[in-house]
């Protein structure tokens, strides 16, 4: 589509006013192209508006509660380390209650989408050697005034052809996030942990972090994104992550969403992979009132492979939605996808996994599974594993199941003197464990198991299981 054809938004448009309010707080060094891109993205958003239930991709997820409330973008510098407005006390950031015990990592902390780690904090990791010299890790805001061409084109692409309304909003309102570039042949020894804290500002706010990860040839990196709600009320987090893996690169990406039970979370992960690259993604969603995670992977080089793992836990009135799409564009590409969900209370889970094997992608292999456990009569799951195959010499399979805890297994445990609630907890834990067991970082695995374990599971039983 031609960018010129977009009709400008009405000057009275509240989103435009919000953008002006945001930009008045951004540094004047921001290049003019970026301001133009933001307006284009907003116009794109204006064209389609928020998705409705008639959009096939949003059939089961109603975002009207997000659409109906006024949007207030979180401004930089407002919060614990800035003007001292309502938020988290600095002490809690120092304490780092979100940290995983024993996890050695490079940490960058954000409050409502804006980086609060200083350059001194980052230099500390360089000095210790946790970050190799030629690697760039920086807050996105610091990269924008003199953006590398790849970053610039990525920002422009997301603004001009946003995959959905939320990506358009992110492109319009993002002012900060993380930038990680690992040069050819360099491997990061420790994972990069990006911590996004959601804190109440002056009422509910919306934050739009943007994460850009570029791995050069044969480079290696692990990135953990944690989204943590800190007493935040009805905040909205709308995050976009892009991973570009050059030939032979390897990236492990972990996304842990533990937002406040009353907040909203919409996230997107776009991955493009060159020849022989390997990407593994874990998406753990166990927070927020309503969350939606989109993962789109493009296997653009022969021999590229991707593995997507996911776990979603619903309780209360939570709505948790995962949409994934894997495009096999060239021959000899492989994908694995395994998602599991546990739904309790009146929660609702949505899973939609699409695998597309394009006409030239012969000798591709794709396997997908989605298993769901319903623990309560009020919980609901809507799942759709989808295969679109345009080549014949492929091996593709998918499976989906919905069920409850096996009554025989429960009976067995109870007959061995284990109380019913504990027995249920053990079986649920075992179900979840299949996903957690695949996490290669032990500290993360243990931390998550502890967070996800129910009160009935005693520490001894837990440790016996893991």
């Amino acid at each position, binding site marked *: 589509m031609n960018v010129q054809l977009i009709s400008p938004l009405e000057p009275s448009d509240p989103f435009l006013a919000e953008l002006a309010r945001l930009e008045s707080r951004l540094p004047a060094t921001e290049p003019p192209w970026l301001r133009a891109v933001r307006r284009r993205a907003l116009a794109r958003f204006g064209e389609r508006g928020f998705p409705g239930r008639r959009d096939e991709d949003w059939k089961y997820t109603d975002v009207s509660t997000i659409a109906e409330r006024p949007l207030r973008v979180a401004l930089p510098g407002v919060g614990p380390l800035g003007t001292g407005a309502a938020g988290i006390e600095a002490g809690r950031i120092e304490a780092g209650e979100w940290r995983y015990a024993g996890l050695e990592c490079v940490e960058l902390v954000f409050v409502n989408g804006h980086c609060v780690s200083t350059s001194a904090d980052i230099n500390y990791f360089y000095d210790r050697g946790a970050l190799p010299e030629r690697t760039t890790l920086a807050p996105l805001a610091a990269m924008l005034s003199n953006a590398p061409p790849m970053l610039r084109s990525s920002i422009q692409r997301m603004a001009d052809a946003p995959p959905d309304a939320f990506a358009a909003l992110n492109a319009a309102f993002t002012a900060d996030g993380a930038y990680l570039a690992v040069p050819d042949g360099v491997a990061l020894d420790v994972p990069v942990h990006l911590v996004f804290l959601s804190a109440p500002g002056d009422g509910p706010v919306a934050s739009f972090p943007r994460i850009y990860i570029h791995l050069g040839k044969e480079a290696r990196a692990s990135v953990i994104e944690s989204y943590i709600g800190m007493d935040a009320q009805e905040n909205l987090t709308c995050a976009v992550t892009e991973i570009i893996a050059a030939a032979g690169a390897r990236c492990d990406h972990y996304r842990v969403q533990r937002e406040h039970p009353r907040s909203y979370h919409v996230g997107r992960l776009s991955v493009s992979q060159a020849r022989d690259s390997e990407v593994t993604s874990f998406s753990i969603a166990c927070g927020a009132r309503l969350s939606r995670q989109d993962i789109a992977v493009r296997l653009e080089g022969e021999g590229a492979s991707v593995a997507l793992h996911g776990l979603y836990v619903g309780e209360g009135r939570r709505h948790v939605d995962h949409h994934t799409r894997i495009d096999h564009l060239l021959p000899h590409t492989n994908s694995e996808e395994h998602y599991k969900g546990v739904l309790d209370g009146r929660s609702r889970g949505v899973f939609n996994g699409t695998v597309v094997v394009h006409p030239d992608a012969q000798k591709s292999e794709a396997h997908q599974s989605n298993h769901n456990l319903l623990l309560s009569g009020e919980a609901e*799951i809507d799942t759709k594993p989808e*295969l679109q195959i345009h080549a014949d010499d492929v091996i593709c399979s998918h499976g989906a199941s919905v069920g409850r805890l096996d009554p025989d297994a429960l009976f067995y445990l109870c007959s061995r003197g284990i109380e019913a609630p504990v027995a249920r907890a053990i079986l649920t834990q075992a179900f979840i464990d299949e996903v957690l067991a695949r996490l290669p970082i032990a500290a993360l695995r243990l931390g998550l198991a502890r967070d996800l374990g129910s009160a009935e599971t005693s520490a001894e039983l837990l440790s016996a299981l893991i």
Partner: protein
Amino acid sequence: MVQSVQMKETPQSVESLVNRDYAAGFFTEIETDTVPPGLSEEVIRLISRKKEEPEWLCEWRLAAYRHWLTMQEPRWATVEHPAIDYQAISYYSAPKAKTDGPKSLSEVDPKLLETYEKLGIPLREREMLAGVAVDAVFDSVSVATTFKGTLAKAGVIFCSFSEAVRHHPDLVRQYLGSVVPVTDNFYATLNSAVFTDGSFCYIPKGVRCPLELSTYFRINAAKTGQFERTLIVADAGSYVSYLEGCTAPMRDENQLHAAVVELVALEDARIKYSTVQNWYPGDENGKGGIYNFVTKRGECRGARSWISWTQVETGSAITWKYPSCILKGDCSRGEFYSVALTRHYQQADTGTKMIHLGRDTTSTIISKGISAGRGRNAYRGLVRIGKGAANARNYTQCDSLLLGSRCSAHTFPYIEVKNASAEVGHEATTTRISDDQLFYCRQRGIAMEDAVNLIVNGFCKAVFKELPMEFAVEAQRLLGVSLEGAIG
């Protein structure tokens, strides 16, 4: 397996058969009693008047038409076709005088006869299928009469839809549109407005229909036209097996077919509905062919009722159909078995919906898609377990077989579960015939074509075994004939 071994064609005849033009071809002629093309309330009133229908049915049609005007063609299926001009279709034509067809079988294209030979179609039926202009075949009339007697003795009502409207208006009024409402979807609503005829079947309480209605149907098959309406009601404790269509290629002048089939199963009733569809699929360049946009739905209304759909879809340029079951009665059961084959430029978007509403309801879905050439095959299904459907069970398996590098196979299974005691499982695979399988057969001395046949028939076995026996045999042969030359 036996069938495939029996088929011994030389490669030349295989080639020629696959590349043959559709033997009966298409032709149009001007009918004297045809309403001019176009659709309006006037046309609908005219259809209703010509069919001497009661006022309520005319109003019912008009209500459907008015709603249809507000609807849009569905766009979600993975099928592509040029826009259909609904005003260019003639919605009514009187039964044709059969003077235009070939006079005897000797005038029919030998290739078509060859196909009939392979399928083992009885001679009488060949004449009928080829559209031979015979006034009344003595044998078939007498056979039909015998069948009519048997059915009447059992109390089974089986007649054309117009006859049913005349003779059993209460039954028709009670059940028509009760499963597929007039507002259901674009094509069903169009059908509700303009349907011209179809079949009506009522099995009284406790009666096991003495015949496979298929048998009768094949002998008695009248041209039912492009907007066909079928309504089958199985009263408490009854059983009926119904077969629609025929394995032999059928001659048909209408490009758009929008049929509606409604099944109602009351307490303890069982309905088995089998379809073999082999309409003109278009030529090897994708020109022409039937658009088959059908709405089929059954409702298990009573406790322990059972509806089973079996379909073998090899014809039509585009197939768009989702035979569904609404499992309302407690302990009711729905089944769906499907083989869909697409080759050349054929497109099929088919599947089922299993809506579990009652307690202890179960459903099974077995779908086998075969794509060859540039064929496109999509399974689109929905399994919905409602809040009250305690202990519901569903098992779904949908497999795709790809023959050729330019075909495609898609799977879109929707699973919606609102009850924790449900158990739902879905499995799907997509593969091609492996070289190992072929090699194994070849080194045992089985010819390539036969080996492919063997493997494909094995792939479809779970579905074929659900067909009434004689049709299972025919369906197997049909698949073999359809696949000739697909591997190369």
